[in-house]
């Protein structure tokens, strides 16, 4: 609460926005109205409050009229609140003693035909803004230092790429891999499409670069067992062969990859005559037996069905590439691919698809309602264009199974307090705009841990995740807006943890204090969304600049 003795002096600046507001609302009336509101000591209309002239008027008002709260009624806080806040700051007023009222986007623009009603609504909005402004309290931005060290979990191609990117920028990196060797899925593959690069050679090259870099510490046969803290200040426990390590970390990249689904019970899978694409990779790596003359591949085995509705993105390109490799190793082998949709998106994939047709790989579309049948010597499939069943001789049947989430994805998810989606893949902060960030600050993701990715995509995402994660490292500190959750009433908190479970950003934790279990807000992690304060049935939590008192005052002002 503001000091009761403090004389609240509110200045209201009404912006015409050229004619965007003044053309549709009665500004004289709004001016007269604003003058009569409680604590308002100064009212001014400006053609453009955001122009240099308008800003100077606000600063002048603060200084000459001794204003200690400023309300600007104008366009939208989305674009202009930072400008007005910083202008208040420049005039010596705490920037958080500023309140913006939206009388353009939410008033004049939507009530262009209703000047009188629009003006009445603007009055309501201004009255509410002023009521809240009277209760505003000064806030200070929150700053926290960042440990200049990154942790990458997972040493496949995405993780190694991210690790090298950090190191190339001069940052220390810790890379944790659960297997004995780095390389991930690359270690199991023969050649990579569409360039037919040797997977082992690429893995070796990357592993050499990673292990030889002075900024990189690698732990293989290791796992992360505990992560405490928040962006910039994580304490991470790693279980390694040489004992447990506790390392201070600034940012974390999740690059734990995925694994190939094993199609037990599907299409007569036996690992010998009926195998997966991953098993075929091994055969191709060692050289395919020359006796193999007839190969049939079946796409979407275990994916795009009720249990696993997603398309695993990369299996079609894998099949096409492997079909070409079979034709290369056994030139007289016949290869047929039975598919639902050939997912050869983009430039390179479609080109490889065309090439494979030239190289006489055969494609037959099948309907999932009438799937192919694997028989002892052949595969039977209904050929829609011929309108009849076809029997394809098959001494090798290859099932294209999806990449599925790692078995321990949920363990990592719990350790880091980041979400996984319904398919078990890690869930990014925003599907379109933040594909490599988690909603939680300081933790990033890349590669098949996010969703099945080919080599090009895994590399790009590894670089990208490192880029995103490098921002706090480069700045050396995190500064956040102080409009965050605070435990306003510690006594009221019962430590029930409901808010902790609901916080989308991992910004709350329960601590044992002298007064018992109490929630603690990790201020740099909080984004001020308000979920916790709205949920807390004890009203123990409150959001700065959106306190219950302030909002009640607004509601009362509206009902007045």
């Amino acid at each position, binding site marked *: 609460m503001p000091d009761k003795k403090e004389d609240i002096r509110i200045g209201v600046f009404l912006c015409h*926005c*050229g*004619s*965007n507001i003044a053309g549709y609302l009665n500004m004289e009336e709004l001016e007269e109205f604003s003058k009569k509101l409680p604590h308002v000591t100064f009212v001014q209309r400006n*053609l*453009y409050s*955001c*122009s240099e002239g308008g800003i100077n008027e606000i600063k002048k008002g603060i200084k000459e009229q001794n204003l200690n709260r400023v309300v600007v009624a104008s366009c939208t806080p*989305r674009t202009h609140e*930072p400008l007005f806040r910083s202008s208040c700051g420049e005039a010596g007023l705490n920037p958080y003693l500023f309140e913006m009222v939206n009388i353009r986007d939410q008033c004049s623009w939507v009530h262009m035909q209703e000047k009188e009603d629009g003006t009445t609504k603007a009055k309501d909005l201004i009255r509410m803004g002023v009521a809240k402004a009277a209760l505003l309290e000064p806030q200070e931005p929150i700053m926290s230092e960042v440990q200049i060290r990154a942790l990458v979990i997972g040493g496949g191609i995405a993780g190694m790429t991210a690790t090298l*990117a950090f190191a*190339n*920028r*001069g940052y220390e990196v810790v890379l944790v891999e659960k297997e004995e060797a780095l390389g991930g899925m690359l270690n199991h593959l023969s050649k990579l499409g*569409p*360039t037919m*690069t040797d997977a082992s050679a690429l893995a070796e090259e990357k592993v050499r670069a990673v292990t030889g870099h002075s900024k990189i510490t690698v732990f293989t046969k290791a796992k992360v067992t505990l992560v405490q803290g928040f962006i910039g200040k994580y304490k991470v426990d790693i279980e390694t062969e040489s004992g447990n390590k506790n390392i201070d970390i600034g940012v974390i990249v999740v690059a734990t990859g995925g694994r190939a689904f094993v199609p037990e019970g599907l299409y007569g899978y036996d690992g010998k005559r009926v195998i997966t694409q991953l098993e075929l990779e091994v055969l191709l790596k060692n050289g395919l037996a020359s006796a193999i003359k007839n190969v049939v591949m079946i796409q979407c085995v275990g994916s*795009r069905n009720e249990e696993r*509705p*997603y*398309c695993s993105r990369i299996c079609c390109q894998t099949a096409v590439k492997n079909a070409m490799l079979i034709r290369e190793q056994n030139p007289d082998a016949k290869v047929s691919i039975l598919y639902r*949709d*050939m*997912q*050869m*998106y*983009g*430039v*390179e994939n*479609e*080109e490889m698809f065309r090439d494979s047709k030239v190289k006489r790989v055969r494609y037959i*579309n099948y*309907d999932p309602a009438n799937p192919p049948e694997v028989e002892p010597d052949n595969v039977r499939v209904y050929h*829609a*264009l011929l*309108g009849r069943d076809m029997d394809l001789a098959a001494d090798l049947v290859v099932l294209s199974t999806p990449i599925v989430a790692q078995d321990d994805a949920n363990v990592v998810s719990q350790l880091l307090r980041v979400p996984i*989606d319904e398919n078990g*893949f890690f869930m990014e902060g925003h*599907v*379109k*705009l*933040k*594909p*490599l960030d988690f909603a939680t600050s300081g933790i990033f993701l890349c590669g098949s841990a*996010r969703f099945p990715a080919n*080599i*090009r*995509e895994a*590399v*790009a*995402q*590894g*670089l*990208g*995740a*490192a*880029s*995103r994660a*490098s921002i706090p490292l*480069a700045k050396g500190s995190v500064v956040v807006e102080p409009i965050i959750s605070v435990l306003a009433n510690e006594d009221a908190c019962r430590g029930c943890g409901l808010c902790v479970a609901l916080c989308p950003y991992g910004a709350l934790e329960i601590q044992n204090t002298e007064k018992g279990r109490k929630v603690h807000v990790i201020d740099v992690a909080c984004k001020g969304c308000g979920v916790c304060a709205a949920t807390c049935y004890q009203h123990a939590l409150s959001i700065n600049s959106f306190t219950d008192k302030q909002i009640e005052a607004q509601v009362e002002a509206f009902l007045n």
Partner: protein
Amino acid sequence: MLDVGRHPNIELLAYSEVENVEGEAGDFKVTVRRKTRYVEEDKCTGCGACAEKCPTVVPDAFNEGLGDRRAIYSYFAQGIPSTHTIDPDHCRQLNGKKCGICAKTCQAEAINFDKEDRIVELNVGAIIVAAGYDVFDPGRIPEYRYNEIPNVVTAIEFERLLSASGPTGGHMDRPSDRAVVAEIEALEKKVRKSQKALDKLEEKFNEPSAAFYKKFQAGQYQDDEDRQKWADKYAAHLAVIEPLEELKKKAAGFTVAKRLAFIQCVGSRDFRFYPFCSGYCCMHSIKEAMIAHEHEPETTSSIFGMDIRAVGKGFEEYKIRGGNNSNITYVRGRVAEITEGPNNNPIVTYEDTRERKVKSQEFDMVVLATACAPIKGIAALAKTVGVELDKYNFIKTSSLSPVDTTTPGIFVCGCAESPMDVPESVAQASSAAERAAEIAFQPELEKEKAVA
């Protein structure tokens, strides 16, 4: 956009072109032409008063020519920077005619007709090319008759029709119907004008035009020159009224488009044009069909494609949801031809590959999922910047270095590299930023350089 516009570390040079690049990774000299807007950027507040008053109407490129804008304009309402620009090809003042209304209207005094292009020299460590792509011109495909059938539109045009801030306010008004409505408006304007003239004459002669005209036609007043003119005017008036009434009758039956066809791979996966797959079009067709259905629940959509490539995270699920909840039918087959049937309804002829039949189906509107074409001018830009292109004119990279061009220190992201959707573009932008940062911000490397 807002974040870019507001970030203290970003200097935004919009409406500018790179003219020359010299130097090498870590030390490039870039010459940029800052094209004049004829508007002082630091004074313009983006209020739009000038555009309201500007008398010159120009087709709006942002709305794919489906709406119009003025000769002084901001590219679109939320554009950053919000500064307005005068279109020098259409501005009356800049073309030697008397005008200058915008300058008189602008209270910020931002208009400056004498402002010239400026050349800016930049010294940078690394360069990222993110020049985007162009929409393939489907007029090049004769059998789809894009230029002949008004209700065959491109996906991006349809996008504008779907937009609440677009030219139809989000209603699925068909282009052929919009043309009739526009014609009605033009004729009504004409009628109002001639009615005004007739009103004056009626007042002068104190007689309604219709009554007078009857007499005139019966042979009266044949020697009266003034009345002769009146008769001509009235005849002309009637000549407009009749077709106007006809058109109005026609327009009364207009409804929004409810039967939609989406045709995939228009210009992509086509040896005549672009053999590659454009990657994102299957999803935007599904999305547009779903939004159209949200706007008008009676909408049904057929999506015609060889493969429906819903390969991103959550895409296949989205596709299935579209089929279950938004009346979308996925038809496996390539459309052979589009013709025009009654009521300007396009008719789509295709082979249904599941039923082995050639079929024809009538729709209210057809939406073409056009290919992602390399952007016009990419060859010149590549030459200026000094990078190689692939055989399709995308900027060349390799799968192990997906954002590195053929020149060190110059990187690429987004559809300038190859067709990709939003999440992939966003991810790739971060990748390019990473590679650029490795070169541009390397205290240790610089130290090494200094030592060497």
